[in-house]
């Protein structure tokens, strides 16, 4: 015990730094956990809206016109794709995947253009540090407001996006209910939430792994 006292008195700064690092990791983990739950809540609200709009469209267009039987089984590529990159926090051993989304990619006449929405964890974390009301469905108030809150480098015109959206709905007929279009936008918004959740999940598990390692080292030491 006397040795410990001597050590702690000799290097109080080092121990304090270690404690601060550990506290930082714990805070990062708890922040990610909170963001994860908040985002899942928001996703639930968005999906509920989408299901409701889909049900309304089915009511107005008829059940047979909106059915999985109509889903196209022809060879087709997804218009909305995802990018997976490696995100490194600190040492290379603490890398974790980072996800971004490219909506309505179109390759026509050899040109490839897309709308890429990068949702960074840091952005959302700083947004989430403000007062949060879990259970509120206002995380994304409207799809239009949601678009304004995300950095979007858009290299595709709105008319191209509308064409891609119309093409996606064409399996349900030429004339579709406005509710079906609204449902489409809701599910697009849900995709944005999903990408954020995937990134937060990745960050949370990375922080959890670091904390686990620290606890193991403490048990051994």
């Amino acid at each position: 015990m006397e040795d410990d006292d001597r050590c702690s008195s000799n290097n109080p700064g080092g121990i304090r730094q270690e404690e601060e690092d550990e506290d930082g990791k714990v805070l990062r983990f708890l922040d990610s956990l909170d963001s994860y739950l908040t985002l899942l809540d928001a996703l639930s609200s968005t999906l509920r809206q989408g299901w409701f709009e889909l049900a309304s469209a089915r009511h107005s267009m008829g059940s047979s016109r909106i059915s999985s039987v109509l889903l196209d089984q022809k060879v087709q590529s997804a218009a909305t794709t995802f990018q997976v990159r490696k995100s490194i926090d600190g040492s290379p051993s603490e890398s974790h995947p980072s996800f971004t989304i490219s909506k309505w990619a179109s390759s026509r006449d050899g040109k490839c253009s897309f709308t890429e929405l990068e949702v960074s964890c840091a952005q959302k974390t700083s947004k989430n540090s403000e007062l949060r009301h879990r259970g509120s469905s206002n995380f994304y108030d409207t799809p239009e407001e949601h678009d304004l809150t995300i950095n979007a480098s858009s290299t595709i015109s709105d008319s191209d996006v509308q064409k891609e959206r119309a093409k996606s709905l064409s399996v349900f007929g030429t004339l579709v209910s406005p509710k079906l279009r609204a449902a489409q936008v809701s599910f697009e918004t849900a995709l944005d939430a999903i990408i954020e959740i995937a990134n937060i999940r990745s960050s949370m598990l990375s922080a959890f792994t670091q904390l686990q390692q620290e606890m193991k080292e403490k048990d051994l030491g």
Partner: protein
Amino acid sequence: MAGRGQIRTNNSALIAMIADEDTVTGFLMAGVGNVDLRRKTNYLIVDSKTTVKAIEDAFKEFTSREDIAVVLISQYIANMIRFLVDSYNKPVPAILEIPSKDHPYDPAHDSVLSRVRYLFSAESVASGRR
């Protein structure tokens, strides 16, 4: 779990879905549907006739494909193959449990949250105090 195993980077990956008809239809409208040359899709629509074996096979297939970044699975379907979902530990594809129309999201069953819950358990707190 993060950092365990190689992280496969990909510039054009897909999202796979194992969910009910309305959820899959909705996401397909958002443009995530893919059918390859072998007529293999990136989704499985689960209804009352879908067997647990079919769900397991779809989960195993989607988690082993290199072109899939995220696997969305309705939580009530994940509960049917809970052992398989909980034992999955690769960073990519990420498995996300989502609510369905008839089954709201329950954090108690989420595989990620149950994995990290032990940090707050009495045992881990007690071992920290020792």
